[in-house]
């Protein structure tokens, strides 16, 4: 079956521009996560969607970052007024249900470069 997909795979943008990153989770997965991975760093948790509940946004680094999940499926991470420090690989993951014990299935990531 299809795994988690993300688009675009690479995005180069200029400082100050807005970008949108897309994630298509595995069909039927109710939980969706966004992470950021900078060079030499671990995965930094950004936001977590659980079914129809309000998302946990505790990991978003600033108000320039936002995310939405439409229809309980596709999610879009938006970064406004991008800065060079936003350059990183953005990973999306999904799991069957929300819960501390559930395996996350990861997408290939979007590599964002801010010039």
């Amino acid at each position, binding site marked *: 079956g299809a795994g988690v997909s993300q688009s675009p795979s690479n995005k180069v943008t200029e400082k100050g521009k807005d970008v949108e990153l897309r994630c298509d989770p595995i069909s039927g997965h109710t939980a969706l996560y966004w*992470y950021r991975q900078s060079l030499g760093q*671990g995965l930094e948790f950004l936001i*977590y969607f659980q079914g129809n509940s309000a998302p946990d946004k505790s990991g978003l680094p600033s108000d320039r970052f936002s995310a939405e999940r439409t229809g309980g499926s596709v999610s879009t991470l938006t970064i406004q007024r991008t800065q060079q420090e936003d350059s990183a690989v953005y990973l999306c*993951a999904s799991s069957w249900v929300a819960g501390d014990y559930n*395996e996350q299935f990861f997408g290939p990531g979007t590599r964002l470069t801010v010039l």
Partner: protein
Amino acid sequence: AQSVSQHNHHVILSEAASLELGCNYSYGGTVNLFWYVQYPGQHLQLLLKYFSGDPLVKGIKGFEAEFIKSKFSFNLRKPSVQWSDTAEYFCAPRSYIPTFGRGTSLIVHP
């Protein structure tokens, strides 16, 4: 706040050598423990996990990990590594919010 520490950032081994990657976390409540692996050019995937019961858990490809509650540790081991084990390994304890360590880059020479 929950945090995780992976002690080895870069490990280089020859085939057939034994492997142990350290992972310590700080959280006083119930924590579920995961190791994920990312092979070159591939997505992150689950290697093994621990929730309860036998503190020695086995995962894919001959890997195992031991949960030592008193030490807040969940070290990953493999008795004899192969060239195909070359990858990035992430320890990920979780209590509600998932937390990932910085990762350990393992290179196995044939």
